């Protein structure tokens, strides 16, 4: 691998069953029990499951009904995001003792770039064990870590010895590690892409590596060259300390499936209000409105529209969302609706300067 950059040392830290572990930590009676945070027996989805529940096949994002069927003794608890956030901040403080290059992915996951670190410790493997130890001492929670030369490999490695373990993929091990890797674990490969890969005879990293870049571009479009590089250990995405949200959204699963748009309008109104609050809090506005519709058969549809200007006002959000709702017939009853706003004005760095001068945009007819 020819890289002009010095070899980086990236750690991916992932808390083990974070929400569920926090609940078990705070409520000793839940310890050792099959636990699901979020959802309930009849409705909603599981946000997180304890390892005891995972043994039964309960996974996050699974519907409550299915989870209960898989694991009849499953206990549902409501999520307490404030508490998770509080602990997450404690953990982040520990990361920051080692490096400022911390990129949180969510409350329970982060990338750290420790190539240059505040402790002057040359071993990323040792730093990772220290961090894991400190997290356990200060919070009582376990986590896993992956250590390697880029974010992609580090993230896969953190899953390797989970829970409560860590895995280092040394620079000279990266290539064999990736070649042996199941294609489903690759960056950006979900269920659909995996199916496609299988059909093309790609099952492992090695299979992927054998395909020329033209072949990948033809079959996977823009992602083709990404796959091509990643399997060669090239993933130069830096650890971005202040990761800005790409979109802000609000969504709601209904207690009963809705079949008429008329009832949905009311829900959209609530969602618009909620979204406006979130936008206010983050001090952002966006141009692209996406309406997410999850049907009763769990199939998902998104409809979006990009405006010429940034909006953050609930009436405008509602107006556009309503337009999207009526744009096409619903093909089933609906269990979830969500509105999100993307193309945020944080993407364009020059805008904050202009906002001081009260940015205004002359609108045009859409001819």
């Amino acid at each position: 691998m020819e890289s002009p950059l010095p070899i980086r040392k990236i750690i991916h830290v992932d808390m083990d069953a974070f929400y569920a572990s926090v609940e078990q930590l705070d409520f000793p009676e839940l310890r050792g029990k099959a636990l699901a945070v979020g959802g309930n027996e009849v409705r909603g989805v599981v946000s997180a499951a304890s390892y005891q529940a995972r043994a039964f096949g309960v996974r996050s994002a699974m519907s409550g009904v299915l989870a209960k069927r898989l694991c009849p003794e499953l206990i549902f608890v409501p999520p307490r995001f404030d508490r998770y956030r509080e602990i997450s901040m404690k953990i982040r403080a520990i990361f920051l003792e080692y490096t400022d290059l911390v990129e949180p992915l969510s409350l329970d996951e982060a990338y750290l770039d420790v190539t240059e670190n505040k402790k002057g410790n040359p071993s990323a493997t040792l730093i990772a064990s220290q961090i894991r130890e400190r997290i356990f001492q200060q919070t009582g929670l376990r986590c896993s870590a992956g250590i390697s030369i880029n974010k992609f490999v580090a993230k896969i490695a953190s899953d390797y010895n989970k829970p409560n373990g860590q895995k280092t993929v040394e620079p000279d091990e990266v290539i064999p590690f990736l070649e042996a890797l199941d294609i489903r674990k690759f960056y950006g490969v979900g269920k659909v892409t995996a199916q496609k890969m299988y059909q093309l005879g790609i099952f492992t990293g090695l299979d992927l590596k054998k395909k020329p870049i033209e072949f990948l571009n033809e079959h996977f479009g823009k992602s083709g060259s990404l796959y091509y590089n990643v399997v060669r250990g090239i993933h130069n995405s830096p650890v971005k300390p202040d990761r800005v949200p790409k979109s802000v959204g609000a969504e709601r699963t209904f207690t009963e499936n809705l079949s008429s748009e008329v009832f949905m309008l009311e829900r959209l109104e609530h969602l618009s209000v909620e979204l406006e609050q979130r936008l206010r809090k983050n001090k952002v506005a966006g141009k692209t409105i996406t309406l997410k519709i999850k049907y009763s058969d769990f199939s998902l549809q998104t409809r979006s529209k990009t405006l010429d200007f940034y909006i953050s006002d609930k009436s405008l959000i509602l107006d556009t969302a309503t337009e999207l709702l009526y744009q096409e017939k619903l093909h089933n009853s609906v269990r979830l609706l969500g509105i999100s706003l993307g193309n945020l004005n944080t993407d364009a760095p020059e805008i904050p300067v202009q906002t001081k001068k009260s940015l205004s945009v002359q609108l045009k007819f859409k001819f």
Partner: protein
Amino acid sequence: MKFIISSTYLLKQLQVLGGVINSKNTLPILDNFLFELDKDKLTVSASDLETTMSAVLEVESESQGNIAVPARLLLETLKTFPEQPLTFIVENNNTIEINSNHGKYALAYADGAEFPNTIELEEASTTVILGDILATAINKTIFASGNDELRPVMNGVFFQFSTENLTFVATDAHKLVKYQRTDVTADQVAEFIMPKKPLNILKGILEGSESEVKIEYNVSNAKFTFDNTELICRLIDGKYPNYEAVIPKENPNKLTISRSQFYSTVRRVSIFSNKTTHQIRLKIAGAELNISAEDIDYSNKAEERLTCDYQGDDMAIGFNSKFLNEMLSNLNSDNVTLEMSVPSRAGILSPIDGLDEGEHITMLVMPVMIND
């Protein structure tokens, strides 16, 4: 070739025709008027290749001939004469001599055959409209047309004729005017886009005219014939945007207000608006319309309150005051309505009174989004 004509009569006609002549021409012959004499009929034409206008003048003459006379020189000379008969005599040395009460003046002329031929309209349809109505239709719409070379279709006025009405539309994508007459109809459906220059000329001539204007048109040209005058022009090629689609149908918020009061307030407040955006803000709550503007760069600020009749939700909406001013000044009614839906959709301005029977005016203006 020789003819006698009244100096002021000729000047008046030539000044109108002179509007067609460009100040700079690539073809030098276009700097001339074409004089075509046939006994007591003198046809004078001017052209810029896109538009050709001609008028038939009555003269005293026995002869025939075609010559092209330098337009600027002739006009400048004619302007100085008091009313008197002038005799034009074409001499053999390629000059035309004008004889007045005071003396004589010689101008070099070119051969009339050099002048571009007028376009013959083939397979044309015909519609007849009263001169003053056409002038009003142009007057009400033309200010809203665009100047964007990338969208040439919007640089003209869209003529949409049907058996039920005649509709004239202009838009520059920010504002739009639809002027409709249900009291005038065409025999068949037709649509074409007229460029601005000939329309401005027609507007000037036809204002207050009781004469009937015959409009003939095919896919590429249109011809306007009235009194002694004929104007042929090339149409703007292309498809006019589907303007009906941008007229909002549901406008629950309706403001009714005195036009003159609204206009003078907008004019006054807009002096304080930002010099590039000309943005003013309308805030409507209950029966109160609050109009404000601010130029943060210079700390200028203005605010006025007006009472109005308002039905709808309280709302705040921003507009470019230039557009509002243009629209309000173009209307003649005592009262107007401004219908709105949300701050990101067009506002619809319409007059309530002062319209002729069968006359309909709809003006749309897109708002300015205020992000603060």
